[in-house]
C-alpha cells in the first residue's frame, strides 16, 4: 500500500499557531506569574521550549520548562514482550501551587495526558493543570480536552500524524500519513 502524505501545517503555520497559543496562555493566566511549562517527551518538550521563548518575547520574563517521561505511567504495558526504554523526567522546579501548562504535540486518545497528569501530581500539587497541544486529532478515550489547540484535524484511526523537527529541535511541519 502506497503511503500518502499531506502537509497540514508548514513551518510558518506551526510558528503562527505557537504564537497564538502563547498569547492565549497569557490571556488566560493574566501574565506569567506562577506559570510553568511541562513538555511530554519528546515532541512536547521541544514545543514547550518554543512556547517558553515566545512567552519571553511577549512578556519579557522567563517561564521555566520541565520535561516528563510517561513510560512508567502507561496503562498499556502487559504480557511478556520487551518493556520500552525509560526516558528522563526532569522537573527542576516545584510544581506546588503553580499553574502548570502541559504541552504535547498531538492529542489523540488522551491516555498519554492522563499518564502525564499522574506524573506531575507525584511531584506536588499544582494550582491547576492546563493542556496545550499543537494538533488535536480526536478519538478521545478519556474525558480530556485541550485548553489551547494549534489546529483541529479530523482523522481516521488508521491515519497517523507526525510533527517533524529539525536538527535544532525546532518544529518544521506537521504531516498526515495515510
Amino acid at each position, binding site marked *: 500500500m502506497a503511503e500518502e502524505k499531506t502537509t497540514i501545517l508548514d513551518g510558518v503555520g506551526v510558528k503562527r499557531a505557537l504564537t497564538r497559543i502563547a498569547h492565549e496562555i497569557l490571556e488566560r493566566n493574566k501574565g506569567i506569574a506562577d506559570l510553568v511549562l511541562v513538555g511530554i517527551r519528546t515532541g512536547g518538550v521541544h514545543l514547550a521550549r518554543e512556547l517558553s521563548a515566545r512567552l519571553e518575547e511577549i512578556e519579557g520574563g522567563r517561564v521555566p520548562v520541565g520535561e516528563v517521561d510517561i513510560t*512508567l505511567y502507561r496503562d498499556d*504495558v502487559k504480557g511478556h514482550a520487551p518493556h520500552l526504554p525509560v526516558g528522563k523526567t526532569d522537573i527542576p522546579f516545584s510544581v506546588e501551587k503553580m499553574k502548570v501548562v502541559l504541552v504535547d504535540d498531538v492529542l489523540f486518545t488522551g491516555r498519554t495526558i492522563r499518564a502525564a497528569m499522574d506524573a506531575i501530581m507525584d511531584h*506536588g500539587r499544582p494550582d491547576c493543570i492546563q493542556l496545550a497541544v499543537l494538533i488535536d486529532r480526536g478519538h478521545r478515550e478519556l474525558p480530556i480536552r485541550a485548553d489551547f489547540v494549534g489546529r483541529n484535524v479530523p482523522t481516521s484511526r488508521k491515519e497517523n500524524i507526525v510533527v517533524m523537527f529539525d536538527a535544532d529541535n525546532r518544529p518544521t511541519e506537521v504531516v498526515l500519513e495515510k
Partner: protein
Amino acid sequence: MGFKHKDIIGLQDLTREEIQLLLDTAENMKEISDRDIKKVPTLRGKTVVNVFYEASTRTRTSFEIAAKRLSADTINISASTSSTTKGETLSDTALNILAMKPDIIVMRHAASGAHHYLAQRVSCSVINAGDGAHEHPSQGLLDMLTMRQKFGTIEGLKVAIVGDITHSRVARSAIFGLTKMGAAVCLAGPPTMMPPGIERLGNVTVCTDMRDAIEGADVVMMLRIQLERQGKTLLPTLREYARYYGLNPGNLPLAKKDAMVMHPGPINRGVELSSYVADGDQSYILKQVENGVAVRMSMLYHVSGGELPTE
C-alpha cells in the same frame, strides 16, 4: 531495542546493548528516589518475593525498596525463618511459592547455579541477588553505573579488583560486565584466592603484587574478605593480608589522582580498606548503595516485560 530475557541470572548472559539499556533505565529512574512521593505505578498489582537463603541487609533492603518504588507488593522470606530449616528442598520451596502466583522471585542462595536451576522450573521471572561464588549481577550493574556517572563511559577504563577473587561473585559479575563494556580489568590477591585461568575471561590481567594492579587505575574495587567463609584457612593472618592486600593512604596514590575507591560492603575496616580511605574523598561506597536502588528498579522493570499494542 528491548530487553527480552525472562530472568537475570548473570551479566555473562547479557549483551553489551542489554547492559547499556539496564544502565540507561537505571539512570533515568534515579530521579524517582528524589521526589516527595517516591513511587511510580508501573508494577502495580505485581508481586515480588524476596527469598534470601543467605544473610543480607543491603541487597535485600535495596531490592525491597526498588520494588516498592515501582508499586509492586513485596514479601520477604529468609532461610532462618522458612521451611528450609525443616528440610524442604529448593525445588519444593519454589513450587510452593509459585502456587501463590508471584511475578518475580528475587533470590540469594549459597549454591552457584541455584538460580539457573530455579529459572528452568518456574514460569515467573527470577532475579539473582547472589549465588554462591558465581554472580551478583545487580552489584555488577550498580558498580558500572557509579563508574559511568563519574567518567561518562566505561570504555577504556582501567579497573583494579583486589581481594578474594575465587570466592567473589561480585568480582565475577564485575569482570563479565566491565570487559563487555570495554574496560580493562586487573586482578590482585593472594595466590590462594586467585582462580587459575581467570585471565581467559577477556581483557583481564592477573597481578600478584597489589601495587601493580592499582598503578594508574581509574577505579580501585576492594573486595570483602569473607571471614565467615573460607577466609580463615586461606590466609596466615588478617594483619598480613591488610599489609599486602589492603588499600590505605600509603598505596592509594599509585592509582590515578581522581581514582574512585569502591567496595561492595560490608567493609572490614582496617583489613581490606583503611578507615581513612573508606571515609575519604575518593570513596564512592555510599554512592554505590544509592545507585543500587535505581539499578534494581531497572532490573525489576525490564524482566517484568510488557507489550505495546501493535497498530
